[in-house]
């Protein structure tokens, strides 16, 4: 009986982790798409060729777009992941929080 309850708990915790991960990945993906569109509409990576630094391979538009997208996705995922984690762990820090009316 008790073992059953525990495994159900673990199941739901695991399920919840998956749901949260899904939300984080998906929302950060959407935000990264918007950021990539906006950024590369204003900035043409080909102009990087005019300088020696940063590296010239980044001046290939396909590479720059793809890396730019994944850079934005990484950044938005970090923000979304940290937010999810902070919101999730907030209540556990103060179990004796006085009741508000």
């Amino acid at each position, binding site marked *: 009986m008790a073992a059953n309850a525990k495994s159900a708990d673990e199941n739901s*915790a*695991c399920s*919840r982790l998956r*749901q949260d991960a*899904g939300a984080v990945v998906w929302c950060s993906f959407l935000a990264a798409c918007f950021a990539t569109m906006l950024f590369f509409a204003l900035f043409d990576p080909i102009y990087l060729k005019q300088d020696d630094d940063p590296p010239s391979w980044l001046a290939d538009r396909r590479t720059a777009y*793809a890396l730019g997208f994944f850079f934005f996705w990484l950044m938005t995922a970090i923000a979304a992941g940290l937010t999810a984690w902070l919101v999730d762990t907030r209540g556990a820090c103060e179990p004796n929080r006085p*009741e508000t009316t």
Partner: protein
Amino acid sequence: MSKVPPQVDLSSLYEAQRKIYPREVTGRFNRLRVLAVVALLGLFYVTPWVQWDGHQALLFDLPARKFHVFGLTFFPQDFFLLTWLLIIAALSLFFFTALAGRLWCGYACPQTVWTQIFVWMERLAEGKRQQRMKLDKAPWSFEKLWRKAAKQFMWIAFALFTGYTFVGYFTPIRELSTSVATWSVGGWEVFWILFYGFATYGNAGHLREQVCKYMCPYARFQGAMFDRDTLVIAYDSPRGEPRGSRPRNVDPRSRNLGDCIDCTLCVQACPTGIDIRKGLQMECIACAACIDACDSVMDQMGYARGLVTYTTQNATDGKPTRVLRTRTVIYGALLGLLITGFGFAVASRELIELDVLRDRNALYRTLDDGRIENVYTIRIINKDGEAHEMTLHVTGLPSASLDTDVATVRIGAGSVVSVPVRLRVPAGSTSGSVTAQIEARAIDGSDHIVVSPARFIAPSSE
């Protein structure tokens, strides 16, 4: 002493995910849904193959920074039009949600459409709902292996084809098909085909309704657009209750029963696994599978259809349903305004644009004869469907003369041409920073004239 509030373990509020085996249904809304799937997927897979004026009709040529949309060519400078289009799309979603509920979710959302195709393939390989459930419970056998393998094969093949088609919107699909056939696809193309294919496989094959329940922002806020006149799917609880099983030819009233025979077909048919008889729920994507399931049962029982049906809150309460109301009128008017404005903006946009980029290496140069020279790169963008022949001039700085390597500039349809340009003034005629205008004039009979300011820098006189 402060009272200690009862501890709630939030994790226990999350139900463990169970696999949903949606039951196959037939009926009018299923036909409508299949029609939508065929039309929308057909559109997605066929569109990149359509040619227009010798080029791919719809091609987002990212490496060249050009978007071909039938006869029109758009450049990154037209980005505001894309933003405008997205606002129109969002407002349309609001408008149709207020009017008819989650029409988008049930019939048009890519998540729904691709999930239906993947469920159809699953059914092809593993059989109907009961067979699928039995197969999943059964120990591994040769039959289970080949059925699962057949499903995976169809899923992966279709997902890869989807990824390939998606990339075909960004790389000319005819060239892509040749390079796929000869195994010479570029690295990034391969990567994006796999990436998009994997996303399709994961979303439509495995995640399915979980995307709607846990990941979709629209599912969370669509309720805010609902009012008492919005079309929703609802169970007619006064008619159906008390529910219970009964033999076919018995008058339910004689047994003190409502019309619901509690066959749970509406629950089995639901792709998100809810019971519509509990009322409208956030998980409901309004696919109407439960309506079809219930209607077929009502037909068998000889009862009237519509125990589960499309209705509105007002209709349920016996009040008239209004289509025209403040909310829909405002959404509709705004939408009409935005669409008209968009059409106007596209039709009246400047077809030729001129950018002036200063040479960054030197502020100015003094020539042997004492004249002062500034160097620029002029970019002329031709969004028109035909080529233009132009000459360059300088105005706004009376003493200045303009020098280029070419007398006239030819800009092909939908292309960009860069021309190095030198502006020169006699020594001492100007000092410091002044602004001149560089002008491109069409000499091919069209009356295009475009002007852009250019900062001219001369040594300051002290």
